[in-house]
């Protein structure tokens, strides 16, 4: 895999995460099937993919809680098989499902966790207060975790992941299940971390999240990496600049596909609408009207990472 991050900076720093031919098997099932990844210092790196693509298995290997079945994996220049505890001491992990202690207070969740990293009690208390301020939970410091909202719990989990001042923060689906306000607040905090130079590695299946946060990302499908690049690069490579969505009133959209053939680079027929992948939406629409077709509704939009994602991993439901 090429190494755009290092090239841009023009320095030959060793990547913080370096994987070659990384494999994870569970019995006969191959969850991760030989992936190559390099994450550079200060980068925000994303793993995208449908459920079961192997994102979480990859994150668990990077988090040194799951030994790789095959291939090379080096984190912070160390070998997870041998140096697990030393590496974990320099990572922050925000798991997919919160594992905060509901019986402890917000603050105690941070201070007890800090102790696992060997942080002295006094420093732990001080850092807990700073982090609660950072994630805007200072007012809830003394309350139990149980009654907190999903967004507050998520922010507390992120704060807990920062308690050891980690060099890499691993976030597994950081905003899944949150309402829009809560998601934006989490994004904003993560963006600030990134500005402070913390390396972020996240998995997501939200395309807007990837576009907001990731400098570079890989798309995974069935354990393999199927595309890699910046969000913009991926859109340029795998989609067109614009997309025109047409809805016809007729029972089936199918019949209109032939009549639209030749407009744009690709025509995709969905049960409720037809998508035209084009460079210029206005020109394409003019061509549609020229053919005397009158769709009931029209939407012109810019291509998004979602188009890339669906193109690469298909529209079939994976559960």
């Amino acid at each position, binding site marked *: 895999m090429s190494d755009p991050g290092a090239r841009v900076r023009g320095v030959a720093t060793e990547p913080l995460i370096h994987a070659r031919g990384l494999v994870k098997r*569970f019995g006969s099932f191959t969850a991760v099937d030989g992936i190559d990844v390099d994450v550079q210092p200060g980068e925000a790196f994303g793993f995208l993919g449908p459920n079961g693509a192997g994102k979480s298995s990859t994150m668990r290997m990077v988090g040194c*809680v799951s030994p790789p079945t095959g291939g090379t994996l080096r984190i912070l220049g160390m070998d997870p098989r041998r140096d697990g*505890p030393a590496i*974990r*001491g320099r990572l922050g992990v925000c798991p997919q*499902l919160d594992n905060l*202690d509901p019986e402890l207070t917000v603050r*105690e969740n941070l201070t*007890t966790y800090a102790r*696992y990293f060997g942080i002295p009690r006094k420093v732990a208390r001080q850092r807990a207060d700073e982090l609660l301020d950072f994630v805007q939970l200072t007012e809830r410091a003394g309350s139990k975790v149980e009654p907190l909202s999903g967004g507050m719990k998520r922010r507390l989990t992120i704060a807990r992941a920062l308690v050891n001042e980690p060099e890499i923060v691993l976030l597994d689906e950081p905003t899944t299940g949150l309402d829009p306000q809560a998601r934006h607040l989490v994004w904003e905090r993560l963006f600030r971390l990134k500005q402070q130079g913390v390396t972020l590695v996240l998995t997501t299946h939200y395309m807007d999240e990837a576009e907001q946060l990731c400098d570079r990302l890989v798309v995974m499908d069935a354990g393999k990496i199927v595309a890699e690049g910046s969000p913009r690069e991926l859109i340029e490579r795998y989609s067109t600049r614009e997309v025109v969505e047409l809805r016809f009133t007729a029972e089936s959209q199918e019949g209109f596909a032939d009549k639209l053939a030749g407009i744009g680079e690709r025509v995709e027929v969905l049960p409720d609408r037809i998508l035209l992948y084009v460079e210029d939406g206005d020109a394409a629409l003019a061509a549609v009207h020229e053919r005397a077709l009158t769709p009931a509704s029209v939407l012109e939009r810019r291509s998004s990472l979602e188009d890339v994602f669906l193109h690469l991993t298909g529209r079939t439901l994976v559960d």
Partner: protein
Amino acid sequence: MAAVFEFYLVSYRRVWRGSAMSSFVLPLLTMLGFGLGVGAYVEGGVDGAPYLDWMVPGLIASTALQVAVFESTWPVLSSFNWVRTYEGQAATPVRLDDILGGNLLFVMFRALTSIVAFLLVALAFGVLHSPWALATLPIGALLAFAVAAPTFAYSSSVTSDSFLALLFRFVVIPMSLFAGVFFPVESLPVGLRWLAYASPLWHGVDLSRAATLGVAPEWSVAGHLAYLSVWAVGGYLLARRQFAKRLVV
């Protein structure tokens, strides 16, 4: 390991008052119920000691066992499946032995606090015959470890908490009734006695009884300690294997 133990202490601090109060309830009820009630029917006591004095050390060991098994069932299942405490700990520099060892230390701590409460009540009722009664503390701690470790292995293997209720119904309660707490094992039919002798509880009971009555145990002290240690070490190894299977995947 200290950091993990500390976490459990911080959690316990939130409930310790209620927990300490209830630790005194069983001993008090026992003194009243058995001392004034049942004891009156047992003429001449057992082996030369009044029935209450003979039974209390057995109950101290039995309480240590019940507290230890309880703390090793639902809390362990929850730490895997519901709260997922272990998953959070495994993501830090803490090692598998720290996760398991820190939790087991807390189980022993809980068993010890229950024994202290029991000893205080027993002292007030004058049923302790020897300063050796203090030996019930290390005996109880060893017994707690010997039953908690294999219970950790069990709780981390089962998929639903209904299996935990089975453990109480078919193992803990029969053991508490027949392992020499309330009547001598020799009263059991010969064929069933070996079951009582095989249970870790009987070994804790015999040692505790010797300690509070200030007499020699029925079995050798070294034999008792060795037998309980086998349970402790074997149980720990099983639990460790099961924890590795669940946490390092």
